[in-house]
């Protein structure tokens, strides 16, 4: 009986701690730069792209069908917006133990196969995902950069409103946000939500 009581108490407690996880950035917050291992074997930080006006930071990965559905759109976004000052920076936050397809060697392989034009970084400690508040893949953070090199969160959410069919997209949420920010305006829509693959956190 006592055992049952403690097991119930314990699961209730783990439940509560899981709920109390910090929520990361909100729109308008100042974002932190990071130093993460890129697929080229070098450590990458946002400040290395010094000429950028902002960054499209996308938490994504290899295995997730939603990430895969958006893969070509992410490549296209980078091609379109890097020349305009908003390059894509992709981060894989998943624990490769939980999801071997998202291991560092597999990241290198996939980026090569699909012709990624942007950095694809490994968040091996998962600290960047936690700091930003990423919960799923894909999960986008649009950052702008001030003259004083301060990063500001402008938009959080989905790339557009139809993962399944690029031809059926009605609202290109992210592109609209970039257009607004590049004109110095606040995006009309700053937060969207969408079903995605929960980030595979390391087991404590």
């Amino acid at each position, binding site marked *: 009986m006592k055992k049952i009581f403690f097991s119930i108490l314990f699961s209730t407690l783990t439940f509560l701690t899981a709920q109390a996880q910090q929520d990361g950035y909100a729109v308008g917050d100042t974002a932190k730069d990071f130093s993460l291992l890129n697929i080229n074997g070098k450590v990458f930080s946002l400040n290395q792209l010094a000429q950028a006006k902002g960054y499209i930071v996308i938490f994504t990965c290899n295995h997730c069908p939603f990430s895969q559905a958006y893969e070509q759109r992410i490549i296209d976004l980078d091609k379109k917006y890097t020349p305009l000052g908003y390059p894509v920076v992709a981060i894989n936050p998943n624990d490769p133990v939980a999801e071997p397809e998202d291991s560092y060697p597999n990241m290198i392989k996939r980026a090569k196969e699909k012709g990624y034009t942007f950095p694809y970084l490994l968040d091996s400690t998962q600290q960047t995902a936690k700091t930003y508040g990423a919960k799923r893949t894909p999960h986008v953070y649009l950052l702008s950069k001030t003259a004083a090199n301060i990063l500001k969160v402008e938009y959080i959410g989905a790339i557009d409103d139809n993962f*399944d069919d690029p031809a059926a997209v009605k609202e290109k949420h992210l592109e609209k946000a970039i257009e607004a920010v590049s004109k110095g305006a606040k995006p009309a829509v700053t937060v969207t939500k969408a*079903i995605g693959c929960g980030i595979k956190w390391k087991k404590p």
Partner: protein
Amino acid sequence: MRRVFIVLLFVFGFGAVQAQSSGITEITFDQLLQYKTHTTDTIYVINFWATWCKPCVEELPAFEKLNQMYGGRSRVKVLLVNLDSKKNMDTRILPFIRSKELKSKVLFTDVVELNQRLEEIDPAWSGAIPATFFSGKTAAAKFFYEGQMTFEELDVKVRQLIKIK
């Protein structure tokens, strides 16, 4: 004679349940939302999952166990809302339901439509799955959880919600 009838009823009744459970019912977002806004004494345990989602598939047996434990005429009803792409209905979703012999009620809803109105399920939902929404009659008897759950966690929650009027 009466006994035979009852046995037959049982066999056929069971058969019907079996047939139903190996299928899937497609519902609109509004129909899905009715499980949140309902005013009955039922406690719906609504799990959002997909065949490709590893932690979702891992936790399905816990929901099946819950369904088996409470099932039948109990106040607790388990609903497994599938969020695969509809184009995979015949190639992935239905074969998966059959091979796992899922006994809980499986629903299907369109993710693109769901994405527009995710907030209406629960504002705390980031969109990550697995996610589970517990829906009793009153606001106090509703609870949302994003992440994987064990059978013990589900059972504790359900027992707690049953007590809330």
